[in-house]
């Protein structure tokens, strides 16, 4: 058995999120070097602030400024920073209770080594140079041996509040399609369409995924199908896809390859779009270097009888 296929897969998305009134005030504050908390009904001050009391679920909006100095409540030494983390040299993860707050904020602490960090350590905010209204406007914390800073008494109202954030996320994978789909893709490289037969219901699945969804059993017997097939249904596409070099309108169809137990899909070309029909007999067209059929074109055979493909619609 040839080795299973593997390929890099990058999933990346700039999540664009709107902020509620409390989050907006907090992040606008960071942009302006002000740290805001929110008061709960029982008088505690939560930093970072939330819109609903975590104990009572009451809506809370009473913003109050706290100091940019505070105390480490727990920590962990990170000797190998990872992509995206606040500092690229070794640092401590810390929960910091800022002076005036009753809860702690998670961030990074810039310290020379683990011996310089302990629970109870006094720290202060180091602001990022470029601040945009995001948690990363706090570049990190740094040790601080002065008196607690006096908070300014900011009301939490801003003339130009931040109303949203863009949180870019990227994850890197190595995708492997598994045994059955690897065999299918490998066969395509030899311009063959290979399905797998269910040992129970005898249906031939193409592309195979290694299991029969009707019987719930593994499929393994490989069966070459096609190359010819029958159009079972189709649609006419009138919208040009980005980065796709195909003129519209074009036809996208379901094609039951000869010997297959269900239809796969593909583009139908070599015929005016308004002449494609159910029952049309087609064959794959491969382009130089193509890893799968570029499209299917009419064979010129008489149309298939409806009875021969009605189970494959």
């Amino acid at each position: 058995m040839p080795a299973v296929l593997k390929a890099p897969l990058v999933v990346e998305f700039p999540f664009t999120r709107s902020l509620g009134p409390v989050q907006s005030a907090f992040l606008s504050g960071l942009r302006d070097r002000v740290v805001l908390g929110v008061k709960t009904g029982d008088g505690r001050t939560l930093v970072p602030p939330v819109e609903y009391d975590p104990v009572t679920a009451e809506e809370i909006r009473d913003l109050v400024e706290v100091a940019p100095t505070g105390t480490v409540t727990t920590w962990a030494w990170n000797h190998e920073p990872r992509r995206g983390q606040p500092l690229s040299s070794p640092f401590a993860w810390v929960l910091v209770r800022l002076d005036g707050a009753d809860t702690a904020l998670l961030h990074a602490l810039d310290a020379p080594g683990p011996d310089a960090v302990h629970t109870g350590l006094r720290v202060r905010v180091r602001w990022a140079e470029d601040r945009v209204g995001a948690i990363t406007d706090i570049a990190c914390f740094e040790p601080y041996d002065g008196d607690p800073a006096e908070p300014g008494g900011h009301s939490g109202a801003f003339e130009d509040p931040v109303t949203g954030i863009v949180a870019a996320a990227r994850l890197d994978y190595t995708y492997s399609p598994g045994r059955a789909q690897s065999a299918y893709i490998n066969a395509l490289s030899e311009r063959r369409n290979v399905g797998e037969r269910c040992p129970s219901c005898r249906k031939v699945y193409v592309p195979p995924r290694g299991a029969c969804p009707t019987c719930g059993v593994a499929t393994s017997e490989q069966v070459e199908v096609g190359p010819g097939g029958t159009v079972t249904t189709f649609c006419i596409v009138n919208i040009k896809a980005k980065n796709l070099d195909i003129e519209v309108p074009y036809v996208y169809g379901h094609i039951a390859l000869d010997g297959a137990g269900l239809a796969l899909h593909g583009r139908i070309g070599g015929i005016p779009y308004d002449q494609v029909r159910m029952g049309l007999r087609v064959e794959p067209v491969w382009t130089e270097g193509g890893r799968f059929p570029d499209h299917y074109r009419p064979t010129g055979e008489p149309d298939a009888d409806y009875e021969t493909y009605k189970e494959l619609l």
Partner: protein
Amino acid sequence: MTRDIAVVAFAQSDVLRTTEEQSEVEMLMPVLHDVLDRTGLKTADIDFTCSGSSDYLAGRAFSFTLALDGVGAWPPISESHVEMDGAWALYEAWTKLLTGDADTALVYSYGKSSPGSLRDVLTRQLDPYYVAPLWPDSVALAALQAQALIDAGATDEPALAAIGARSRAVDNPRAQLKGDVPQGEYVVRPLRTGDCPPIGDGAAAVVLAAGERARDLCTRPAWIRGIDHRIEAHSLGVRDLTDSPSTRLAAEKAGAFERPVETAELHAPFSSQEIVLRKALRLDADVRVNPSGGALAANPMMAAGLIRIGEAAARIHRGESDRALAHATSGPCLQQNLVAVLEGDPR
């Protein structure tokens, strides 16, 4: 209407560092066949199917739909899915059986951590405004909890090492880490490699049945006497990381404190979390904790919690325990916790 509902069968895969030669459904299918074979049921005999998995592990949207090929989903079946550990899928199936709409349920879950970087993937479940942009990984957050426990005098590094060593010194042929595993270097201090779970791929499945149906399918059903799940506030800085009130409340609602259990299968991916759970669940020293090795021996994401329920049930099936507790967790620092209490018939 009250009905007695039991776990009547449990199956799991070997947990391996990578299963790249198999797709998810190829990894899962032998486990599904195994669990059905134990009951003699066919897929068509199952009234309700519920699964747990995560798109973020697979890196693909609606990834669970491909796994449905393995359960014989045509003609259409009654099916549901949770984007969580299979323990929560079991909870949904249990409620479905309680309603009387179904007498049997198949619950399965699976996760392949090998395609991605698990520590990065898990950051995506964090608060997207205040936490996720800092990319704190799962080990870092557990390390903050471990340091809080050390500062509170609840444990120290040698005690944590002993938990890791005990967990891996078990005879579990499915486990990923077995025997004398070195405590290793710091990953994020104070946690060393020995305090952290192995990263692996795996799958698990159980069959639930109600009332007499359970007795037909299993000689000694593991009756679910109670099951409950609770959640902490999501902001880590709001919580006391040395305690787990959500676990305690779930255990109380599940009836765990009504009488002692003999066995406890705890989903504690990090050695330090076992300290928190033992306290929250008031487990005495004579309770056998994680005879399977627990998550420190094998922690397939999305299946490790369901495996705790399955391992506890299997001990009852085999007559090795009469009353067992199973716990599952999800999220950072034991954020969400599920507790189930299982009992065999009196002997």
